[in-house]
């Protein structure tokens, strides 16, 4: 999808003034955060699993060529056709070619963030294939012509009334404000599609190198249906999804659902290996796997490698006070929240995405909850440093920083300035507070005061009180 992250400031202002959106974000994130905390507290092995998961992911990335090569070999041996896509355009082209060659007119898709990343649905639809999103949240978002606002719960920004209106308008269903009835409508409408679709499209939560297996985790059961009933199964997965062994999977199954929704395990986990065998009564006859690079091999190269450990649990979104304030759409691309603030500048370009990297207080709540221990604040700091190195910073900021460093280079200069400020403030400011600040700082004082400088700085008072001692210079 077309990134809009450079407009983060404006988009975030809009989000903050949208009351309905605000209510739904705080409800969702609140529930997720509580559920995660309870699940972690109930599972004493969580920290050990985190260490283990983090280590396995990092070691896999460190030898990704080897592990991905193994995955390709094993999957091919079991009948899969592997495609490598350098970028989104190639992925779209491959997918539409497959649909055409396989004669597919209707496809059911389960939730896939990579699918969003390359706009797979859009490409298939443009090629004349009807694509039905089968995850309820994605189904809603698709009907509304929107994009997901959360990587785990795509339609969290919608209320039941909005969903029902959508079902009335687009599906001709009667209005209801009962959630179970809405779910039943979607179940019925989608069941039709599952039974008649020629192709199931899915992402992959994990790719197991030693067996060429795809692991898919869902709660609704759409992932299973879409990969069991249609004749063709198309998988799109980022190259970083590989884990070395099928036997590594349990570690991640202990981490992912607990971090995502607070469940001990997701309702459904499917491990899919190759195509339907002669003795199998069901399963796809054709399995196509598109391995997507789209900038990932570039990320692998440098100091950002750790971000590729991400298992897309969404825990960092839920805990993030910035995400909690502005919601997913403000971020302007596929991946919102802390994970998106690192991935977007790396994948769509620093100039496009760096506003996201700057939109963080570096509070560290994300790193605290990340199941694979990605040091997100540290990576945000690196992005900000790159922004400066590549000359992308606002000249006013650089100028200000230089001036500030110059003042701070000599205690004498600093003290002189402090005293001038102290005099000005004692003459002009009332009650020791500044109700406004000039220039770029003006936003600070829109809704809060800034303290007035003390009439005399501490260093001056200290000298007065204690005199200058040899060690105090």
């Amino acid at each position: 999808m077309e990134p809009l992250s450079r407009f983060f400031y404006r988009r975030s202002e809009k989000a903050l003034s949208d009351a309905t959106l605000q209510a739904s974000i705080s409800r969702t994130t609140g529930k997720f955060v509580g559920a995660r905390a309870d699940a972690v507290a109930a599972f004493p092995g969580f920290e050990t699993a985190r260490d283990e998961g983090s280590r396995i992911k990092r070691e896999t990335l460190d030898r990704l060529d080897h592990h991905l090569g193994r995955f390709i070999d094993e999957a091919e041996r079991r009948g899969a056709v592997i495609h490598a896509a350098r970028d989104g355009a190639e992925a779209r082209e491959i997918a539409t070619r497959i649909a055409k060659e396989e004669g597919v007119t209707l496809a059911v898709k389960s939730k896939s963030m990579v699918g969003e990343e390359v706009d797979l649905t859009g490409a298939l639809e443009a090629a004349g294939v009807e694509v039905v999103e089968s995850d309820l949240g994605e189904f809603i978002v698709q009907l509304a012509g929107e994009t997901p606002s959360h990587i785990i719960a795509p339609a969290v920004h919608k209320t039941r009334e909005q969903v029902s209106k959508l079902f009335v308008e687009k599906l001709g269903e009667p209005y209801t404000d009962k959630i179970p009835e809405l779910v039943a409508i979607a179940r019925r409408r989608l069941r039709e599609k599952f039974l008649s679709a020629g192709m199931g499209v899915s992402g992959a939560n994990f790719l197991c190198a030693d067996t060429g297996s795809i692991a898919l985790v869902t709660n609704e059961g759409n992932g299973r249906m879409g990969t069991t009933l249609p004749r063709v199964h198309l998988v799109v997965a980022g190259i970083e999804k590989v884990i070395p062994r099928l036997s590594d999977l349990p570690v991640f199954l202990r981490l992912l659902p607990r971090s995502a929704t607070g469940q001990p395990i997701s309702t459904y986990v499917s491990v899919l290996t190759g195509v339907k065998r002669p003795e199998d009564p069901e399963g796809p006859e054709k399995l196509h796997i598109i391995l997507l690079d789209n900038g990932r091999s570039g990320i692998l190269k440098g100091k950002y490698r750790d971000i590729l450990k991400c298992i897309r649990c969404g825990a960092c979104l839920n805990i993030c006070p910035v995400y909690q304030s502005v919601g997913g759409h403000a971020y302007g691309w596929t991946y919102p929240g802390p994970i998106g603030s690192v991935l977007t500048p790396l994948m769509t370009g620093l100039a496009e995405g760096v506003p996201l990297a700057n939109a963080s207080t570096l509070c560290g709540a994300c790193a605290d909850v990340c199941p694979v221990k990605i040091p997100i604040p540290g990576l945000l700091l690196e992005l900000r440093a790159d922004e400066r190195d590549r000359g992308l910073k606002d000249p006013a900021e650089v100028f200000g920083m230089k001036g500030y460093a110059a003042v701070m280079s000599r205690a004498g200069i600093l003290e002189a300035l402090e005293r001038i400020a102290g005099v000005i403030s004692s003459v002009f400011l009332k009650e020791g507070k500044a109700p406004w600040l000039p220039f770029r700082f003006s936003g600070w004082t829109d809704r809060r005061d800034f303290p007035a400088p003390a009439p005399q700085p501490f260093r001056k008072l200290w000298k007065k009180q204690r005199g200058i001692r040899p060690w105090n210079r």
Partner: protein
Amino acid sequence: MEPVGRKEELLRRIAVALRGHEAIKSASGATAGREAALSVADRIARFRNMFESQGGNFLAGPSLDPLLPELGEALRISGVTALFSPRGDERARLVAETLVPFGPFRLASPGEIRQLSAPSSAGFQTAEFAIAETGTIVQSGQKGKTLLPGLISDVHVAILSPAAFVDRMEECLAALSEDLPRTISFITGPSRTGDIEQTLTIGAHGPKKVIAVLLP
């Protein structure tokens, strides 16, 4: 067809990217959640606890007969009328057949259930594993087994024997790895969604009720 070399090119690109950038030092492997093996009774108790806490229904008895009224009632209140079991699964067929008099039930074929116009159904199948750690039922496609009962029915009835219980996910995967089937399906409770207003709602696409029946 795939232009030759794209895959190779991808792997080469990755290899180049990795060159000259240090790998982290490997820590020795710790293993999470490994505890002493449980006794069979503890394992079953643990399974039951986890399974029920995630919305599953658990029935156990010395034989099938005393369980039939309760099982029949559970299906009846879910509106089930058609019962089916996969070909070759004698145990499941027996349970389904014996249950017919305990409600407004009749036997149906898997083919009938696959139709869109299918009646509300219960699918009976012997489960291969039950994982105590997570309260998970495991069905696989090994040796040509079908997955339909746990997939498209409205109520999934999984028949378990004490030998099916394992402590952890690893054991089940290891056992299935010897002859890896095309599909391994972990099922933990009924199908659910929280996609509308974060409200947990049962019965998104899969079965609305999952009943584990433990028979000796």
